[in-house]
């Protein structure tokens, strides 16, 4: 980074921060299973990493995408390190269905499972359950048909269910 750019960096960083903080926090919070503490820690750590990385590499073209990728990796690391709290009274469909709703333990459990799935399945389920995006929109992003996405979702769901079954109640039948 040149000298004059270096001098401007704190202002640029704050401008990006103000533009992105709400969206990044929402992105993290949806994956933090209702834990405000976790959401705040991850958000804070993500921006601190940006203060170290951006002066060297320059501001990315799409800072929010960069921040979301870092936040996602931080969350994955967090979930990989810990055991999930079991959900006694819920069945698997309820767990998956309520993952996108606000502040549920189900979301935390799903995120824990996603951290252990392969990246392709995880991304797909994340888009569908955590971000609540419709199949058509996901299909457009992946550049495939809705039918193909439905097939992939079905396979990804099965893989996730296998992972989550030991952590949910007795009604966790696979469909």
């Amino acid at each position, binding site marked *: 980074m040149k000298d004059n750019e270096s001098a401007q960096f*704190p202002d640029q960083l704050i*401008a990006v921060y103000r533009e992105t903080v*709400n969206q990044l926090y929402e992105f993290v919070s949806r994956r933090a299973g209702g834990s405000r503490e976790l959401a*705040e820690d991850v*958000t804070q750590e993500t921006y601190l990493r940006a*203060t170290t990385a951006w002066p060297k590499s320059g501001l990315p*073209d799409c800072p929010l995408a960069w921040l979301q990728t870092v936040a996602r990796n931080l969350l994955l690391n967090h979930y990989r390190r810990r055991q999930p709290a079991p959900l006694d009274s819920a069945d698997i469909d309820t767990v998956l269905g309520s993952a996108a709703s606000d502040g549920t333990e189900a979301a935390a459990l799903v995120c824990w499972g996603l951290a252990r799935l392969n990246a392709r399945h995880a991304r797909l389920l994340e888009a569908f359950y955590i971000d609540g995006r419709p199949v058509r929109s996901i299909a457009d992003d992946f550049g495939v048909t809705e039918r193909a996405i439905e097939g992939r979702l079905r396979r990804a769901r099965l893989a996730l269910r296998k992972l989550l079954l030991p952590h949910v109640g007795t009604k966790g039948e696979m469909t």
Partner: protein
Amino acid sequence: MNTTHRPDPDFVDNLERELRSTARRQGRFNNGPSARAVGIRKLRWTTGLVALAAMCVGSAATFAVTYRLRGQTADLIIARSEARLEFADARLELFREELQETEARAAAGVLTPREVDSMRLEFAQVEADAAARALDVEEARITGRDPDNSLSAPILRGRDFVTERLELERAVLLQRVSLIDKQVAAHGSDLNESSMMAREQEAARAALSIIEERLALRQNYLSGARTARQVELAQMRFSVEPQREMAARRVNELQRQLDRVHTLVENGMATRSEARAVEMEFRAAVLQRDLAELEMQILERKLAEPSDQ
């Protein structure tokens, strides 16, 4: 945004303070690396330099030249866009004075309200151009490249320059359509005048619908409803469609001319060479139409096929 997923304002403020002080404290962008890092780096360089010297000289020279050229290119692009903005601003000032004078002359009864409206429209166009050039400068300063006006261009530091430029165009076209509508209503009885205006009205509405379609495609892309490939192809289709329609109209028109000239030849009122000239023109128009049709078909097929499977 759902309130559950909204950050606590205190958290946001505290983090902003922390980031600002961290960014300033680090000051690492001006300072060199730490002493330890320098030591390690020196050692590595000393051992590796002998073996790699010959290769490094060539690579470093290439890199330095490329880096310098890239920097110079960015500076040139920014300087060029700033110069364009200056021209646009100067033009805007001239038009502002011209508009004031036109309004004054209209108030004195020398010019008609219609002439004032036309001048206002021209001024709005020039004003929108200047605003678009200002956006170009902002974009060039961020990217160091020429403005990217494609529908799949990325958002830059939270700014959607493509939509902003399209909105400027849209505002001017809306003004144009409304002015023409007003003029059509005022000249309803004059047949020549109204038919000319109807054509203008049609052209202005078509231009507006193109901009609105581009805006919709851009929003589709940003919302994730369409991929970059899909919006670019859809845009291509949208620009080919009017060409196809125009070519089809031309074929119909020439077909009528050809029938007429054949009748004239049969009656001995036109020569065969005159008929051949019209035939040639007709064939060229048919070819033009078929090419546009083909282009549309290719685009339709490309749009229908999945991009990655």
